[in-house]
């Protein structure tokens, strides 16, 4: 059928006009339903979330706990939590937030509502994973595992939880924020992770399980448990792949221990510090592998590392009994010698007893050789014939090469890695001669040298001034000796009975001793007029920064002391600044009952001095001191008591002398 062109045009015109009108009419219709329909993507994603959650729900169980839970004080686990099926015969993992290895009375509620008693079988505490076993009547639904290699940052993730109860699990939706977080233990998500879903699965959009949700801590943020992080847009899951890899060991009843190497670094800064070894714990895997002071770690199992954080990232995921290969740089040659050692990690280090020689070095600017100021008459150095004025040039352990001694700190680090009773040789310069002296180390002791041992010939003049710092309301008062250029001073922080701000009258008794022994005495005031509190500590830290700007501080001679209530606080300050405070003097005071005495560690020397007043000392106080001494013995921490009871005036001279000797080598 053919139309004439005119007809064609007319038909076309009619069609076009008709189409226009119809389109406009339908477009004009008010209200247009199409306008408010959800975008197709949003609706599809919502459906996907719900389907994925349905798939994951089959392997998600509720955990009910009577009695002891894992949660800390104000983070109540509330008795209900979530768990994830890992084996169809009844194996379930949950997080140690709700259940610990010691918990009795655990019930698992399956998705069908049935309750089953559960036994705690194994655990991986470093990853906060606990393994439970029930006897289900029918096999449980095992989840599909999402492989770590397939994970993509930015993909959808869902957290399921059963802590709120109900038939369907709660859903929290977010994205995968990062992989390989929390020292390699977990993946990170921004879905809302909280006690509502700890122990439950983190799913991908297909309903496969990426990992088990757990409160892994972010230590750089100063957290203890990790459960402080809920509501912050950050949460962690332990990859299911990793859990399955160690499942047989947990099923066999093991509590997996994190592997320990036994080293400490010269830098305290984990993030930017370089991995140069300060000490290796005697008897540890590091010591057995021959790792020693001055070595620098450059690779772990072939992976290059440049910072302490890098080493830690590699080692934190290892278990005890695993072997690691460490590549080290050693020595002063150029290029430095490179060697590779193997170490088998352990779950605990042998108890450590710090060795010493009994030498008090002269306070000299950094970079100067070690000169003996005083030798403890009952110590190994005295027995070996070392005397005041000798210069220590090098130290040689049995079977090793002589290591040059560059500074007091370096000698301390060398000694710290040795055992008590170890035989070594010191190369000592006396006058023009160099002597080769055999010495045997002895256990470290807490000493108060006699007055002439460490005193300067003439006492230095002192300045009494406040250590002002930004945002510090009550700056501490400091008695600062004016020493020669570059000569470092020791520090003694003294906490008297809490009275509010400190006055110059309080500082006067310290004037002479500070100048005589080169010790800066810092006297903090308490914010509250009648008690010490933790709020007093941050201001103290800032004041110490100000002190460092006044003159060089010798880190081996930093101590704190306290009288009566101040003594308890002195102990807490030492705990808080662990490693930086080398001695605590408790004058008419005792170790707080709830504080733990830290186990002795190389690189963190600590000694304790007791002092009792002449008046007001009761038998109860004496028995309390004996208890404290027992606690210190158990932790291998050396201690001593001031020979004379004091009073009414504080023994400032004895305390300053003791402070100057806490760094005794």
């Amino acid at each position: 059928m053919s139309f004439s062109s005119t007809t064609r045009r007319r038909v076309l015109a009619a069609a076009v006009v008709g189409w226009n009108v119809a389109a406009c009419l339908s477009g004009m219709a008010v209200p247009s339903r199409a306008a408010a329909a959800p975008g197709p993507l949003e609706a599809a994603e919502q459906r996907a979330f719900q389907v994925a959650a349905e798939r994951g729900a089959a392997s998600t169980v509720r955990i009910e706990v009577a009695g002891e839970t894992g949660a800390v004080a104000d983070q109540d686990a509330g008795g209900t939590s979530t768990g994830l099926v890992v084996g169809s015969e009844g194996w379930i993992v949950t997080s140690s937030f709700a259940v610990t290895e010691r918990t009795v009375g655990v019930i698992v509620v399956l998705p069908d509502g049935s309750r089953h008693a559960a036994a705690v079988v194994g655990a991986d505490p470093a990853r906060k994973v606990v393994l439970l076993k029930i006897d289900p009547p029918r096999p449980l639904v095992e989840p599909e595992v999402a492989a770590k290699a397939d994970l993509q940052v930015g993909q959808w993730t869902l957290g399921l939880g059963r802590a709120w109860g109900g038939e369907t699990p709660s859903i929290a939706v977010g994205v995968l924020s990062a992989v390989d977080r929390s020292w390699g233990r977990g993946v990170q998500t921004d879905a809302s992770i909280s006690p509502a879903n700890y122990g439950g699965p983190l799913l991908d959009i297909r309903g496969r399980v990426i990992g088990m949700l757990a409160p892994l801590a972010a230590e750089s943020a100063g957290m203890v448990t990790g459960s402080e992080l809920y509501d912050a847009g950050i949460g962690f899951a332990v990859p299911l792949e990793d859990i399955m890899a160690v499942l047989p060991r947990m099923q066999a009843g093991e509590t997996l221990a994190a592997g320990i190497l036994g080293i400490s670094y010269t830098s305290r800064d984990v993030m930017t510090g370089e991995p140069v070894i300060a000490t290796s714990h005697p008897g540890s895997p590091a010591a057995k592998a021959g790792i020693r002071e001055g070595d620098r770690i450059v690779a772990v199992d072939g992976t290059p590392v440049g910072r302490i954080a890098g080493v830690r990232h590699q080692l934190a995921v290892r278990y005890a009994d695993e072997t690691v290969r460490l590549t080290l740089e050693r020595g002063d040659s150029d290029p430095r010698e490179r060697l590779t050692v193997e170490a088998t990690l352990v779950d605990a280090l042998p108890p450590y007893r710090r060795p010493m020689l009994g030498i008090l070095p002269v306070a000299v600017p950094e970079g100067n050789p070690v000169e003996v100021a005083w030798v403890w008459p009952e110590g190994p150095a005295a027995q070996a014939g070392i005397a005041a004025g000798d210069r220590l040039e090098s130290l040689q352990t049995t079977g090793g090469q002589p290591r040059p001694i560059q500074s007091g700190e370096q000698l301390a680090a060398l000694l710290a890695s040795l055992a008590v009773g170890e035989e070594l040789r010191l190369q000592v310069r006396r006058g023009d001669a160099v002597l080769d002296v055999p010495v045997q180390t002895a256990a470290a002791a807490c000493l108060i040298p006699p007055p002439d041992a460490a005193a300067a010939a003439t006492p230095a003049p002192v300045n009494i001034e406040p250590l002002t710092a930004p945002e510090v309301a009550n700056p501490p008062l400091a008695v600062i000796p004016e020493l020669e250029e570059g000569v470092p001073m020791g520090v003694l922080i003294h906490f008297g009975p809490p009275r509010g701000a400190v006055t110059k009258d309080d500082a006067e008794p310290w004037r002479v001793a500070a100048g005589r022994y080169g010790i800066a005495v810092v006297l903090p005031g308490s914010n509250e007029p009648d008690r010490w509190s933790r709020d007093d500590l941050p201001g103290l830290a800032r004041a110490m920064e100000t002190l460092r700007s006044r003159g060089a501080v010798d880190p081996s001679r930093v101590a704190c002391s306290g009288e009566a209530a101040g003594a308890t606080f002195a102990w807490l300050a030492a705990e808080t600044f662990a490693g930086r405070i080398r001695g605590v003097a408790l004058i008419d005071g005792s170790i707080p009952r709830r504080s733990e005495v830290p186990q002795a560690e190389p690189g963190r020397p600590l000694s304790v001095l007791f002092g009792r007043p002449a008046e007001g000392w009761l038998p109860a106080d004496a028995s309390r001191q004996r208890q404290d001494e027992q606690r210190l013995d158990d932790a291998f921490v050396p201690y001593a008591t001031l020979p004379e009871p004091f009073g009414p005036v504080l023994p400032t001279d004895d305390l300053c002398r003791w402070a100057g000797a806490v760094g005794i080598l």
Partner: protein
Amino acid sequence: MSEMRPQTIPVQRVAVTRSWLACLLAFVVPGLLTADSRWACGSDVVIEQAARTVVKIYGAGGFRGLEAYQTGFLVSSEGHVMTAMSTVLDSEEIDCVLDDGRRFAASLVGIDPRREMALLKLEAEGLPFAPLDGGSLEEGLARAEGGEAADGGPEGSRTVGASTGRGQRPAAPGTRVYALSNLFGVAVGDERVSVQQGVIAATVPLAARRGAYEAPYDGDVYLLDFTVNNPGSAGGLLVDVQGQPMGMLGKELRSTTAGIWLNYAVPLAEVAASFDMLLSGRPAETDAMADVLPFDTRRLGFLLVPDILEKTPPFVEAVLEASPAAAAGLREDDLLVAVGSQSVTSCAAVAEELARIDEGEPVRVSVIRDGRIVDAVLGPRPAVDLPALPEPSLGETL
């Protein structure tokens, strides 16, 4: 939505080739002219509709811990605003700023202490509102523009079809939602309120407190997987991605069971019931929950271990001979884990749950014995208010 009229194209005068071109354009142009409604992404339309009903509220406060602002939303075209009951409303002057920037002084019509909601009234007409009867936001806007009152009938005759209205099914976990509120008061001046998005995590009964103050409402709430417990968020509007109002954002509360801060919204049905009650001026419902006397387990013939810890695990200390407990097979050292279907993790919880069982109903318990769960039925629950039993001394045998 466009209302332009496109022009019909005069076909007769053009040449053949140009007429084909014209035809092509003719198909495309109408589509373009009505494009904004057909091709728009759904969410920005929904958010636009929702935001127009949300109101910024300013009142009393402004010192430490108590902010002077919060959020509310219009529920009628004559200016009824539902919001959260809080100290912000403790003011002589309550100001409301609408989405279009207009400011109104609001009067407080009433407060609902159980649901912790309040009703304000602005003097206005034709305002966009969020329907409480199951209608979508779009319908609400249409009704407002069409000059209808909230209910389409004389005031006072409204029926709130809360659970029977369209779209009032309880929302399933995973439902995507938007929350609109003036969190942290960042929307200053005439700015529109803020939008957050996430999903409904779960629907659970509220058990919460703020400090020592226990929240009086214990009905169901929507727990959300994003952070809405911010200063200023309370009273905000929760909608789903289809433009259906879902509820009112809750206050800053901690869960009594888990100790964590809750992010929740009160479902629309409760907001509707509260509005209904406040509008009609009926006195607030007193929650006639009888004081639940703790139940003494000795009436069933067994004794739990002394409740001396904060949460003492409910182990059975002793069972009386020839008692309902003995007949049911309960034994010393059994650990109670459930009363009925409710799990119990402390002695206090056991007493509470037993008291909830109606008098005369059988008492079902589950215990752990030798690593297994055992169920037992302890006979009919006796009355609570019998004469008190003498206090046992520790170590006494029944």
